[in-house]
């Protein structure tokens, strides 16, 4: 019943979208699919996969396909703040399923400094025009943290020396939805790590609009594109967790879906990189894996078209989609319970544990469970809202 209500809502939303003027009325996604050699069946298979990824019932597949076809209505403005361009690079990787790149073709990327042909005055003009022309209709995606307050001039863009903070605020005002792409924009990221010399802040600190966080360093190409598609479908914000992360992507712990989980349960651990346990794919907990404290879908979706993910390549998770992970998760190659610094979870230090390994596991598991329970319980204000 709940599904039916949702389905009606989505259909209505798509109906509205289809009435909006398209950027280009002369082409259909079908003709592009044909040109690229994709059959309708392949497209629908992709839509099915996308539906599953978004944790919607299979009956929603036609709606997902419809949403993809309508996505060219969406102008995108992508801003670069204090960042490393890793998130843009991740966006470029989008390919699997292959039609993701078509979705990319079908949004209208109005401003993206890494990709746009225009520079200088002309580039600034493009940004101003897009904000004006698509007032209230564009999606703002922001990569990077924002040096704020007195330090805001540590980032300026344009011939008028506009600070990143002013520019991000301005673009936020008239956006239909705002996505903070990557951990820097979501939580401050690496430049906001102690002692945060540039007073770097997440996007949600500089705007009073709702920001959907898509963290990860960088987030996978699927989490970026999936978030976009979710917006097109719902026309509202997705269900979010306590940190404003879409639940469909960040609802599960890495540890719970991990391919090495069986070894954790069996107490089989890598003791040193390159040892026999490493050759056999044992659990990396003792090598500092932060999978038990990290909520993301890496263990399920992997990176670079399912090529691999950190744990597959033999290294523990860094916890990169969690707030302040640089300060709370390091040292990255030690279990949390063994750390010698007073940084994480109130400073559980090595001196506090006699049997590092045993207690380490217990502590970690307990913390993981507690964290999960807390995060799952917090009801997101967006949920249940009409």
């Amino acid at each position, binding site marked *: 019943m709940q599904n039916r209500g949702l389905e009606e809502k989505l259909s209505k939303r798509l109906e509205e979208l289809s009435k909006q003027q398209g950027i280009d009325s002369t082409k259909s996604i079908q003709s592009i699919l044909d040109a690229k050699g994709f059959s309708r069946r392949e497209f629908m298979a992709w839509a099915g996969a996308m539906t599953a990824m978004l944790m919607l019932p299979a009956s929603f597949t036609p709606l997902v396909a419809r949403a993809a076809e309508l996505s060219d209505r969406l102008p995108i403005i992508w801003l670069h703040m204090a960042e490393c361009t890793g998130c843009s690079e991740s966006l470029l990787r989008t390919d699997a399923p292959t039609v993701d790149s078509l979705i990319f073709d079908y949004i209208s990327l109005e401003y993206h400094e890494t990709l746009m042909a225009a520079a200088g005055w002309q580039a600034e003009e493009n940004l101003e025009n897009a904000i004006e022309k698509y007032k209230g209709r564009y999606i703002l995606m922001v990569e990077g943290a924002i040096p704020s307050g007195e330090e805001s001039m540590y980032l300026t863009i344009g011939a008028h020396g506009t600070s990143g903070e002013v520019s991000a605020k301005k673009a936020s005002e008239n956006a239909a939805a705002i996505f903070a792409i990557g951990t820097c924009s979501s939580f401050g990221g690496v430049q906001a790590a102690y002692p945060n010399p540039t007073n770097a802040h997440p996007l949600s600190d500089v705007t009073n609009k709702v920001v959907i966080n898509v963290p990860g360093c960088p987030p996978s190409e699927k989490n970026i594109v999936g978030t976009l598609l979710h917006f097109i479908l719902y026309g509202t914000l997705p269900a979010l967790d306590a940190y404003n992360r879409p639940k469909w992507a960040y609802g599960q712990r890495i540890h719970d879906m991990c391919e090495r989980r069986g070894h954790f349960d069996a107490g089989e651990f890598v003791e040193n990189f*390159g040892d026999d346990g*490493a050759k056999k794919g044992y659990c990396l907990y003792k090598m500092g894996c932060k999978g038990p404290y990290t909520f993301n879908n890496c263990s399920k979706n992997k990176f670079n078209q399912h090529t691999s993910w950190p744990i597959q390549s*033999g290294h523990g998770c860094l916890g990169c989609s969690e707030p302040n992970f640089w300060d709370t998760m390091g*040292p990255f190659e030690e279990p949390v319970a063994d750390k010698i610094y007073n940084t994480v979870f109130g400073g559980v230090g090595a001196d506090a544990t006699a049997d590092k390994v045993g207690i380490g596991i217990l502590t970690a598991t307990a913390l993981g469970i507690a964290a999960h329970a807390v995060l799952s319980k917090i009801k997101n204000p967006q949920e249940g809202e009409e």
Partner: protein
Amino acid sequence: MANKRVIIDPITRIEGHLRIEVEVDENNVIQNAFSSATLWRGLETIVKNRDPRDAGFLLQRICGVCTYSHYKAGIEAVEDALGITPPLNAQLVRSLMNQALFMHDHCVHFYHLHGLDWVDVVSALSADPAKASKEAFKYTKYPVATGENDLKLAQERVKTFVEKGQLGPFANAYWGHETFKLTPEQNLIALSHYLKALEIQRTAAQLLAIFGGKQPHPQSLSVGGVTCIMDLLDPSRMGEFLTKYKEVANFLEHAYIADVKMAGAAYATEPSVTAQAGTMNFMAHDLIQLNKKEFLFSSGIILDGDLSKVHPINENLITEEATHSWYSDNEPLHPYEGKTNPEYTGFKDRMTINGHSKEELSKSLDETAKYSWIKSPRYDGKVMEVGPLASMLVSYACGNEKIKKIIDEFLAETGLPTAALFTTLGRTAARALQTKAIIDNGMETFNTLIENLKVDQETCAPYLIDNEREYTGRFIGDVPRGTLSHWVRIKEGVIQNYQVVVPSTWNAGPMDAKGQHGPYESNLIGLKVKDISKPLEIIRVVHSFDPCIACAVHVMDLKGNELGTYKVDPVYGSSC
């Protein structure tokens, strides 16, 4: 008539935040040029007091484009400090991952960042696809994505963009500019490759991810070695690497390198890209390990464009200064006494020429004071250009046979003189030729790895960090944009000081105390710009360096240490 001032900010299609400001005379010839990074992040401050094993992960986040370069450098600097030699398997895997990075990075730079400076997308729309398809055979025996059907499709895809008047990322650029030199057919070939390269770069990224876990920001290097032992022991995984390597190499050879030859011929007489380089000093470090001992590219310094002599590098002669950079501490201080003092002095109000050729009140750089977050590195007081051009020239001058062959063939095929190498065009060509050298020789690394795995499966060297001891070490070597060095001091088991000297710093730095301009600036001075409201010539010159500005602003010497406070081998390696 007084000189006119022009600001270009943001310089797009680069990594990071860069501003270029120039002064032109009444003939639009650039009289003075200033390069400014407009973002500071301060990662070297942040890495202090952290676990040395974490340095690579944190410093990797300097840049998501050079994603592997700073990771490897951060890990290897700590290894150098701790006296660790990683096992041969780890060295070779790291080299293969590095090759994958170069293949990805140079290709994306040429097509998606630099390409639109050479290729007029709008002109491609009037091309005859049949004719263009034939044209492609002039530059390679086996062209890629240039069948008549491919070209028609590419043309149609872009046509829809143009016709709907909604150009997205192609909007408001300099289409139709007088200095575009390719024919419509040649533009169409390059356009088709632009689209194809979007696909190939994904494969190239997978190549790195096979051993790295993900790309950007791979995660399989650890102090002591690599962690991807399961991938190494899985023959199907090795096969995947080999197959994808060949797929990418095929595109690089028959599209990228072919297109550079095509552009080389077309632009050979265009003055804005063939003037002699502003800096004729070049520095490069060895690069790409092929086997137990041998590296593909050579180390050394070339002075005043004299290819008859290669000088060895003396690390003690590297200095940095902040006369025109937004930092206050310029005097050497003891690490315990030093202060972290960014000193931002901002802009100066000035009338400049805007994008509609009108005067507009702007925030302009004050070149009489500080004007960039980048410092000015010097070698023996001299400005050095680093990057693929430097690497190729040094290897060439060293008589490195593998490199000499590639350069000589290129010059013969295009009919260009040796002097053409020392230009904007030469810089862009050198990047393609460096790519060719890698794909022609890189398989040796792969084969050596396979041979070694038969008898040795070590991937990580054991080590201990003694908290009572103090360690210093550094990584120095070439990465896609030139010579990179990371310097670390470890005390009481944590990082006490960290410094990064990055390629784009050498190239993009501001003037020094003596008024010597950095390479970006010196290469712009003397350039004639057709229309200062559409400064394509400037953008083309700057892009030829492949700017990576998030990297460059990490020339943080916040404690005021001179590099000389590190105990370094006075003469690093031999020159050839």
